[in-house]
């Protein structure tokens, strides 16, 4: 029997989440204790630890889910398990080297990819391995792809391009023109996030069709329309990040038009799916269902925020404030993390190897997570409004931070609640996932089973 590494990606992703939120809590402490940790690991090294690990959580868990679904739910023969093994081995090694690079101050990359730039090569190699495996497996076995297969495939291909694009600064033609350089850098980040959204939203669509046991919802015209809108958004809808940079005005016009549409269609799909769901379907996969519905709620809140932030006259004030952070937290935790928790819950519900779970505790953790995220999100908006009120010129000054200390204390407290709530969900998932990983890594042969029974009888 060959070993299956799919769930190891998810296990690594969950561990990255726990580490990432721990560093998130540590960096928030600096706002109320400015010298906190400064002599051990200063803020410029702490912050990338947080961002690198939480980005790893999203990407690793999405990848692991895709590997798992195509093999164990769709029963497709993976083109090469060897390639998947090397994919995991490379990412595992990178996951160890990145913190070493950051904590030993061997940086040099740009924001969100601050580690030593050479590490982008093995990361890209992993994506290429994944792409080869995915396309070779799917082209060989599946005709008439539902939308989620396209979304996953597009997400992988665009991830390779935009990850490369985020390193264009290494070329002189970009490096010597600061405005071009910073615009391409932040364009690539918007598209990079769009690429992982393709993987995560594809997972949401897949889960909806599995929970409802109806692949038609992933084949409808509206679904494909939404998928192409998402793709358009991925390619052109990033410019609201860079409205204020002195670039060509047409770039902002395009973004303004495009960013209004994608979310409305997504809500429509989730809403239609929920209406058509029977009661028995809901209870079969209750935690997966709850997390998908929570992502629906967060899509709505972030839709409202994204719509306003994409209006240039509103963006003029909100840009560079914590309102932007509220938007990114709302999308990465509220939408991405809820969908990925739904994915892990779904996988756990399919396995007989998982131990009995406490429904009351799970329900409590779910509401605690959403409640604490909501308060945290509101607090970021308050901090953003305070920064707007103070004026950007004064922002970041020590006296301003001191005068707003009470707000930052509340902010850190809400961050602590969010940290605890994520642990309450992630740690039991790690605990329950570990034996399933072992089963897939060391599958028992029939002879093993016979030996086991004989040994038990004796």
């Amino acid at each position, binding site marked *: 029997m060959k070993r299956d590494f799919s769930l190891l990606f998810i296990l690594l992703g969950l561990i990255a989440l726990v580490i990432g939120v721990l560093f998130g809590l540590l960096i928030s402490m600096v706002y109320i204790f400015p010298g906190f940790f400064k002599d051990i690991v200063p803020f410029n090294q702490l912050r990338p630890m947080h961002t690198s690990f939480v980005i790893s959580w999203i990407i690793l868990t999405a990848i692991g889910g895709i590997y798992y679904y195509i093999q164990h739910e769709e029963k497709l023969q993976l083109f090469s398990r060897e390639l998947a093994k090397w994919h995991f081995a490379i990412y595992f090694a990178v996951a160890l080297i990145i913190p070493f690079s950051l904590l030993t101050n061997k*940086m*040099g990359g740009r*924001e969100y990819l601050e580690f030593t730039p050479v590490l982008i090569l093995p990361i890209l190699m992993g994506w290429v391995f994944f792409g080869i495996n995915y396309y070779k497996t799917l082209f060989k076995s599946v005709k008439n792809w539902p939308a989620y297969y396209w979304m996953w495939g597009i997400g992988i291909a665009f991830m390779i391009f935009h990850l490369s694009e985020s390193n264009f600064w290494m070329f002189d033609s970009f490096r010597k023109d600061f*405005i071009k350089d910073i615009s391409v850098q932040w364009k690539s980040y918007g598209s990079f996030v769009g690429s992982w959204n393709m993987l995560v939203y594809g997972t949401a669509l897949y889960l909806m069709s599995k929970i409802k046991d109806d692949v038609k919802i992933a084949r409808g015209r509206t679904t494909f329309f939404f998928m192409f809108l998402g793709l358009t958004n991925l390619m052109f809808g990033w410019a609201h990040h860079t409205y204020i940079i002195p670039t060509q005005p047409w770039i902002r016009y395009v973004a303004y038009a495009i960013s209004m549409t994608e979310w409305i269609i997504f809500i429509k799909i989730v809403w239609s799916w929920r209406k058509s769901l029977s009661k028995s379907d809901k209870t079969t996969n209750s935690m997966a269902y709850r997390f998908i519905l929570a992502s629906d709620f967060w899509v709505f809140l972030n839709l409202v925020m994204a719509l306003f932030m994409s209006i240039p006259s509103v963006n003029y004030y909100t840009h*560079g404030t914590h309102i932007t952070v509220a938007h990114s937290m709302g999308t990465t935790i509220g939408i991405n993390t809820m969908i990925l928790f739904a994915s892990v819950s779904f996988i756990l519900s399919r396995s007989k190897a998982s131990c009995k779970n406490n429904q009351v505790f799970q329900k409590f953790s779910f509401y605690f997570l959403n409640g604490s995220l909501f308060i945290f999100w509101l607090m970021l908006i308050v901090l953003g409004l305070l920064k707007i009120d103070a004026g950007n010129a004064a922002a970041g000054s020590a006296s301003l931070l001191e005068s707003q200390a009470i707000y930052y204390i509340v902010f850190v407290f809400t961050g602590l609640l969010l940290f605890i709530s994520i642990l309450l969900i992630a740690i039991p998932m790690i605990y329950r996932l570990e034996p399933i990983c072992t089963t897939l890594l060391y599958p028992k042969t029939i002879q093993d089973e016979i030996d086991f029974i004989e040994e038990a009888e004796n």
Partner: protein
Amino acid sequence: MSKSSINGEDLWQKNNCAACHQLYGLGGYLGPDLTNIISDTLKGDKYVAAFLNSGTKSMPKFHFSEREKEEIVAFLTHVDKTGFYPNKNARIRKDGWVEIEYK
């Protein structure tokens, strides 16, 4: 960008200054935005150079050489020349559009 400015940007990246500081409102939220710090009449290049090695309550003391400090200042001087942030003279139109002021 001059060679000196590019070296300054390398130092900016190697020390991950963007973790705390923003340029054009893009970057971290702990420290101030530095887009126009050089042309700020109350601050300027000497102010920046002084802070680099003295640090603050939350900013670590870096140990830059004189040449490195000059290169970081050269980088920020170049950034300053590319535009305004905050764009205080931007014109906000009634239809929601913003006409920014260019340098």
